């Protein structure tokens, strides 16, 4: 097919694929839909029969180098597409359970924080799939054969750039951010033409001062911002703004290395043609004295125009962050009382509900984790702080059930001491909160919570044994799924929080689950391969659960039979 005729094929394929996916039970984007809700209308698996779930397929990727297995697979037209740490992409035929193809990206220079990982692929028109890589490339592969269609270097990995998130398809564009906030990058989000790989636009997460070609008029004072002494919702940041202003000339070019990675998949609203994403920490992570100012747009939820890449609005959760409480969990769009809002679960331990049109705060939830000494300054003996440097909600995507208006969040409880610049001489981790030291003997655990987005109250909360990294999935079957670092994969009643089913997969289930249909059956899939950063057991299994084949063919058993045999919870079961 010549280039001159190829251009029109892509939108036609995409339109057909999107419509078909909405109807067919495919899962074709990281967040389940463009709004990132991780909510499925599938309900064959419900509160009435979830106790019968069994493993129906196990795909062991066979990679030789394990890392954090944070992938959410995508399913399109009977094929499941999986990515692994160190960037192997694999396609599995769901009918035969056999591997169709495998692409092993040859990594060049790599530098990455927090363990090697990749969270997934994007698919365009059913024809091409896309993967971001640890050496900051965006690779387009043929969906049928895994052959490289094009391979673009998004940014130079030698300067600290990498890509770990699943790209996002918008129309004929592939949208991708970059990681590297620990290494003095200047973060960005870029749109590439899905067919040709040509760059369409680039938006910078660190706004430049006036006079620079990348000046952003939504940040007229550049990344200095407004020198906010408090968070937008009024919490005191204990900043010495006078000193910062005095130092600003000395550090005039700090913005060029200001950090601000965008390393989780954005949300997209088609009606307003707006992309919403979270921006990570400023650089250097620990030392705010060398980066005076608010450090925009770090720690922000940002909205940009999908056509032009221009900023629409931003909401900075923590100006001039020195606690590593950056915005990482991907924002979710939902409708609340007829109003379109953007929801973000913060490392701060609050869920922020923002007006999708203006970015104004609608409400901040009650905290979904214990909080102590928020935004306190370090001390010699250490100031006990909660959340610790991992949050709150880390990168784990939340799920929003639009029928309940609940946001489901997997969070960490890790008390830490924030200490001043002295330390005994020992080799230590230099990034991600090394000024934060875990308190020996203090209990750490995880909290899985449902937050009522209309009221901001925590509707229910379950404590689990270990701090949580992974994510949530909710369904019209009245269920919410999430995994734990000890290998537990759990199903809860979305309304009540009651644990209805659990399976232990061995390695940590530290990824965001998904659901799909194949052959008329509904399945729940989750990668159970652990987490490098917080040392959960590693593995390479992609677990796929379903009802026993006979039950699926015969339909769900009667309520009476279920209660007698398994004591299944039928409260709130989908009709």
């Amino acid at each position: 097919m010549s280039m001159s005729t190829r251009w029109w094929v892509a939108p036609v394929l995409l339109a057909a694929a999107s419509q078909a996916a909405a109807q067919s039970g495919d899962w074709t984007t990281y967040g389940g839909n463009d709004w990132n809700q991780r909510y499925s209308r599938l309900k064959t698996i419900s509160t009435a029969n979830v106790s019968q779930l069994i493993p129906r397929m196990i795909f062991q990727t066979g990679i030789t180098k394990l890392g954090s297995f944070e992938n959410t697979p995508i399913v399109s037209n009977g094929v499941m597409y999986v990515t692994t740490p160190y960037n192997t992409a694999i396609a599995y035929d769901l009918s035969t359970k056999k591997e169709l193809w495998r692409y092993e990206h040859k990594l060049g220079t790599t530098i990455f924080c927090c363990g090697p990982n990749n969270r997934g692929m994007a698919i365009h028109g059913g024809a091409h799939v896309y993967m971001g890589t640890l050496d900051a490339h965006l690779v387009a592969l043929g969906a049928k054969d895994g052959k490289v269609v094009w391979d673009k270097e998004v940014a130079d990995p030698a300067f600290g750039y990498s890509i770990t998130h699943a790209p996002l398809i918008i129309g004929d564009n592939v949208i991708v951010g970059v990681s590297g906030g620990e290494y003095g990058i200047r973060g960005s989000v870029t749109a590439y033409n899905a067919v040709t790989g040509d760059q369409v636009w680039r938006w910078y997460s660190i706004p430049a001062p006036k006079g620079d070609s990348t000046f952003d008029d939504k940040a007229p004072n550049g990344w200095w911002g407004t020198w906010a002494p408090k968070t937008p919702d009024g919490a005191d940041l204990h900043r010495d703004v006078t000193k910062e202003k005095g130092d600003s000339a000395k550090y005039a070019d700090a913005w060029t290395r200001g950090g601000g990675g965008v390393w989780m998949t954005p949300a997209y609203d088609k009606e307003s043609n707006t992309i919403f994403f979270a921006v990570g920490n400023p650089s250097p992570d620990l030392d705010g004295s060398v980066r005076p100012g608010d450090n925009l747009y770090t720690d922000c939820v940002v909205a940009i125009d999908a056509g032009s890449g221009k900023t629409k609005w931003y909401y900075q959760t923590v100006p001039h962050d020195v606690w590593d409480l950056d915005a990482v969990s991907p924002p979710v769009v939902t409708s609340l009382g007829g109003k379109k809002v953007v929801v973000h679960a913060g490392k701060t331990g609050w869920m922020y509900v923002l007006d999708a049109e203006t970015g104004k705060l609608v409400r901040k939830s009650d905290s979904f984790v214990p909080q102590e000494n928020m935004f306190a300054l370090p001390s010699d003996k250490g100031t006990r702080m909660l959340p610790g440097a991992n949050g709150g909600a880390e990168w784990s995507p939340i799920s929003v059930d639009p029928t309940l208006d609940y946001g489901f969040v997997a969070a960490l409880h890790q008390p830490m001491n924030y200490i001043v610049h002295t330390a005994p001489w020992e080799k230590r981790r230099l990034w991600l909160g090394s000024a934060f030291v875990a308190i020996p003997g203090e209990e750490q655990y995880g909290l899985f919570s449902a937050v009522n987005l209309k009221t901001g109250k925590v509707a229910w909360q379950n404590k689990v044994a270990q701090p949580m990294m992974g994510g949530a999935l909710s369904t019209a079957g009245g269920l919410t799924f999430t995994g734990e670092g000890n290998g537990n994969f759990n199903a809860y009643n979305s309304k009540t929080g009651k644990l209805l089913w659990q399976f232990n997969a061995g390695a940590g289930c530290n990824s965001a689950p998904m659901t799909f249909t194949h052959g008329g059956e509904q399945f729940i899939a989750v990668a159970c391969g652990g987490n490098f950063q917080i040392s959960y057991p590693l593995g390479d299994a992609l677990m796929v659960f379903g009802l026993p084949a006979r039950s699926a063919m015969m339909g769900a058993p009667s309520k009476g039979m279920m209660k007698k045999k398994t004591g299944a919870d039928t409260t709130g079961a989908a009709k």
Partner: protein
Amino acid sequence: MTRSWWWAALCAVGFVGGRASAGLDPHRHWSARNGDDWRAMGPEAQVAYTDGFLAGAGFAQAAETAADSAGLRAAVTSLQQSGRFRFPYGANVYVTRINDYYWWENHRPLPTWYAFWEVNTSLIGPTTEPAR
């Protein structure tokens, strides 16, 4: 031979870093520069100092296999394209991480050459440890 590239790299640091480090005592030997000197430098000086260190380290590594200037040029190009420099990352990476390193007050007496080695090790894994 194992340590020869270190010497060449550090000589380069002394030359380029000294020129970039306006305000630092020019009579102090480069091997004595430490975290206090680092923190006394402005950001641009830190980048220049780091670029100098990287240039010296890269030059010395290339020189191990080059017989003449043409070979040297080819070796530098090859190392850059293959990403096989012993210090493979850009100046911004090292500046950021060394700023973090010297944020700790007890690290400040340590020489800058040691900080570069330690930060690089944490980024890529162990290399031959120089004697302190």
